[in-house]
């Protein structure tokens, strides 16, 4: 197996934030809507849902879907404001 120098550094970076207890992608998916709604309501979800916050830092696909969800909801909210 060929391992690049930059990959070794990425491994080190991921080890530096590895926790004993972490959430799987499925567990994060179950709670990410609650996390996003707290953000929309101006609350601090990282304090209430620290494992979701941590998982989003470590898992690019879950992070990608979280960011897409924020964009999607913002667009819907903006439309509602215009309609209202």
């Amino acid at each position, binding site marked *: 197996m060929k391992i690049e*120098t930059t*990959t070794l550094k990425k491994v080190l970076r991921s080890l530096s934030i590895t926790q004993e207890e972490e959430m799987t992608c499925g567990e994060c998916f179950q*709670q990410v809507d609650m996390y996003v709604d707290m953000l929309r309501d101006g609350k601090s979800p990282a304090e209430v849902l620290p494992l979701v916050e941590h998982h989003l830092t470590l898992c690019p696909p879950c992070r990608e879907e979280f960011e*897409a969800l924020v964009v*999607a909801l913002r667009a819907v909210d903006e439309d509602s404001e215009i*309609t209202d």
Partner: protein
Amino acid sequence: MTQRTNAEWLEQLNDPKDDQALADLRKILLRGLRASLSNRINTDLDAITEDFVQDALLKILKSLDTFRGESRFTTWAQKIAIHVAYTELRRRRWKDISLQDITETAEGEVFAPAFLTDPSTTPEREASQNDMLQVVYDLIDTELTDRQRTAIVSILQGGMPIDQVARKMNTNRNALYKLIHDARKRLQQALMDSTGFSAQEVLAMFEQ
């Protein structure tokens, strides 16, 4: 559009379904998904979004009893639509790339084992950084199982998303996350045992 509470959404989307509620939800999902996909998809955005929303609606209607009421109903539904769309886009992007393509080829500089380099020719700091990378390289080689090594290198070196690596390894995303989490914890401990430094301390040597 009618504003609905979570309870009203559930009542109107369960049988017998209220056509107006279904049409409103579809409109919300279309608007949100279109916005999130607009900087990813250049052609046929409307048609592709329509297809994803159709698939998502079926999934949402089948999963209504799993909605726990911990968020707004529309946030929960949009989450499912995003997941349906992005999972499929990742599948399409990576379907023709094998794990072997990633683990047996490298686009960047391949790490050279230390015995190939002469430490006396490199400055002291660079030499100690190379020593640490050598330790990490050796630990990946000796402490991890083949599956753990393949998964970690595919994700961190190849950039393949975990769900697509899972698909190619005939497992699921959650099981693979646990496999990788176990691997990271094992490497963390092995690094401490062999160097006396934590991963944060070793990383700091590179970031000074």
